[in-house]
């Protein structure tokens, strides 16, 4: 008999592809939470998030900022006594929430990621000033002004290029990427 995979199954399957142990072996010891340098800015600690996934709290998990507050520093993964890779879990949740287009309103992370990927698909290289529109509204007008002041300082030190650089074989590069994902709608 076929049953629809639960939220926890979906996440565990995704995790399996990344080569880490499944969330069902979590013992809720909170080593991940205590190793995390960003934990105080998260709606739920990593330990709690794993508990919520295992208990099937799909909507609450997707609505939290926890995985978008992960800086991918792998401190948690290094210390987990059960061999779970919580940093990979955060990546899995970021992908899942982007695919499903479900995330906390007002978060900068999803838009920043999309913008970054779009830039690289077009030019093959990253270009910092191009990401500005993703976050200027967060700091309001004051924030924008401060960001511009720093930009001008860096510009005068020759640290910001005016023209984005691009790779030479862009056409081949894009054909290469199109063999992995459909480029329509992204690039």
């Amino acid at each position, binding site marked *: 008999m076929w049953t629809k995979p639960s939220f926890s199954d979906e996440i565990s399957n995704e995790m399996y592809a990344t080569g880490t142990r499944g969330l069902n072996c979590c013992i809720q010891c909170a080593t991940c939470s205590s190793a995390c340098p960003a934990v105080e800015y998260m709606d739920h600690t990593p330990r709690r998030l794993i508990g919520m996934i295992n208990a099937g709290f799909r909507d609450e998990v997707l609505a939290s900022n926890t995985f978008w507050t992960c800086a991918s520093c792998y401190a948690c993964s290094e210390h987990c006594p059960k061999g779970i890779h919580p940093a990979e879990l955060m990546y899995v949740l970021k992908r899942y929430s982007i695919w499903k287009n479900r995330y906390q309103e007002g978060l900068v*992370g999803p838009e920043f990621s999309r913008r970054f990927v779009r830039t690289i698909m077009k030019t093959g290289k990253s*270009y910092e000033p191009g990401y500005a529109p993703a976050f200027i509204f967060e700091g309001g007008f004051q924030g924008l002004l401060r960001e511009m002041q720093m930009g001008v300082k860096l510009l005068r030190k020759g*640290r910001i290029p005016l023209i984005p650089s691009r*790779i030479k074989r862009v056409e081949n590069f894009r054909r*290469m990427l*199109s063999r992995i994902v459909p480029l329509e709608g992204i690039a």
Partner: protein
Amino acid sequence: MKRYAYYPGCSLETMAASYHVSAVETANKLGVEFQEIEDWNCCGATPYSNVDELLAQTLCARNLAIAEQNRLDVVAPCSACFKNLYFTNEHLKTDPDLAEHVNFALEADNLHYAGTGAVQHLIHVFVRDVGLDAIKRQVTHPLTGLRVAPYYGCQLVRPRRPDGWDGAGPRFFEDLLAAIGAEPVQFPFRLRCCGASLMITNRRAGLGMLRDLLRGATQAKADLIATTCPLCQMNLECYQADVNREFGTNFSIPVLYFTQLMGVALGIRPKSLGIGKELIQAKPVLACAARKPPAAKAPHGSKVRQP
């Protein structure tokens, strides 16, 4: 002369141009030759893995495949690029299905990944392949009295790599600083994350994480922080003013690349190392560079003729 396929990464073309010039100058001085990977592309940083993992691996694989054509091992100065390239290499070597899928994509650019090369971070090349003794022998301007906070950051040492030579309590950065005459300070936050792209996606969290690092380095009475990563450098230096505004602190500590310190110790002119492009002036280092080198010792066994 040792040769490597050099992968600069996007930041070293822009924000971290001084890392690029100091890396190349220092390497040349130590008899290491870099051959830039022809037409390299972005490693994907972290946002790529946020969107699609296979895509992220393919981006890295393209660079690895180009480097393999010249039968050279890859060296990356950026910790994040290093981590991405290193682990893609490991995944592809151990997972033939993944390699086949990625190779199907690489065909579109007439490339093939075979898994014959290795990937190292720049600091690994200096510490392991060149060696601390060889570096010590070439020091002409030891950074005596300069108190440096060795900031490893995260991606250089995590996730733990299968080759695992630096383990959980790495010392190689401290050893390297000591070899060039500087004094590595006890810096409790040396392995803590700088906040990375949280500075863009969650400013409050990013600034809070930076504050801890800056406070740690200041309490350790460091003259400056040395980094191995362009993103750590930019966050620690460029957002110091924002940290001060947010938390009412008064930090003003220069943040330099370890290659700039090595270059000064090896007698390279500060300007050729990109020193001068900082927002917080690197005065303590410039003082070392301006010092007269200690009188050269007569080669062992030779006698100095008296007039």
